[in-house]
């Protein structure tokens, strides 16, 4: 009946946020959400299994904190704007996660953190090519990605 309960719930929530809460919109939102999740089911995406979903707020907090930090760092680089004040470069990181949803989440995290951009993922040898604005401490970047984000994502999406 409901192939994607979480998606359905979020769609209802989105509908109510957009239209304001009235009983009529609740009914309409439920209808739209149910039909949309059936449509989603016929696309047959691989279903993400959230194993330790309670770790999601932790990931969210960490990412929010890192975004604030790197916002300040990148703003400083731009404002100083001495041509040699930073050291951009490419970085190849081997990944251990295989779950597509987890990789997508990692891509969103790394892109929305200013100072690091996700360029391409190679599914053959499971490496990702990143470009970072300040590569001075390359080991630290690897460490952040592997230990701070990837480990947590592997726990969330087993």
């Amino acid at each position, binding site marked *: 009946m409901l192939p994607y309960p979480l998606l359905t719930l979020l769609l209802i929530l989105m509908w109510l946020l957009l239209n304001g809460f009235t009983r009529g919109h609740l009914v309409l939102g439920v209808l739209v959400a149910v039909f949309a999740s059936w449509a989603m089911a016929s696309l047959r995406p691989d279903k993400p299994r959230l194993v330790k979903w309670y770790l999601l707020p932790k990931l969210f907090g960490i990412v929010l904190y890192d975004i604030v930090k790197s916002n300040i760092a*990148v703003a400083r680089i*731009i404002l100083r704007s001495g*041509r040699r004040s930073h*050291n951009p470069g490419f*970085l190849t990181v081997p990944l251990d996660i295989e779950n597509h949803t987890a990789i997508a989440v990692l891509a969103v995290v790394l892109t929305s953190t200013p100072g690091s*951009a996700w360029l391409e993922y190679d599914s053959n*040898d499971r490496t990702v*090519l990143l470009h970072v604005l300040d590569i001075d401490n390359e080991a630290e970047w690897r460490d952040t990605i592997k230990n701070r984000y990837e480990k947590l994502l592997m726990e969330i999406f087993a």
Partner: protein
Amino acid sequence: MMQSAADMPVWAAIAVAFFLLIGSGLALIGAIGFLRLPTFYERIHAPTLGTSWGIGGVMLASMIFFTVSSGRPVFHELLIGIFVTVTTPITFMLLARAALHRDRAEGNGNVPDKPNRSQPAGEDLGESDPRKG
């Protein structure tokens, strides 16, 4: 019951102004960086300021302002934040991979090859890059 902006309590006005300035300031810095950074791959980082805390600050300010002034909780700005966050990586990857493809095809030298060997791509790439884009 919509109040006019002048009738807002001081704490709300301060909070709104603070977040608006943070958000718009970061978006402005991002735009300046977009203009000033020398290479394409560096420039791609600048707009993320606007799409992360730029949008975040404006979003928070808008939520506070309309919650206080209309006297009921207003949250739908969150959707803007969520959708901007989820959709920017797609555009970014499209642009970046197009640039990578071009640089590899033209042999611009300072981009890493297709990652078939696992060589550590740590050398100073993109440093002596001519102005592109």
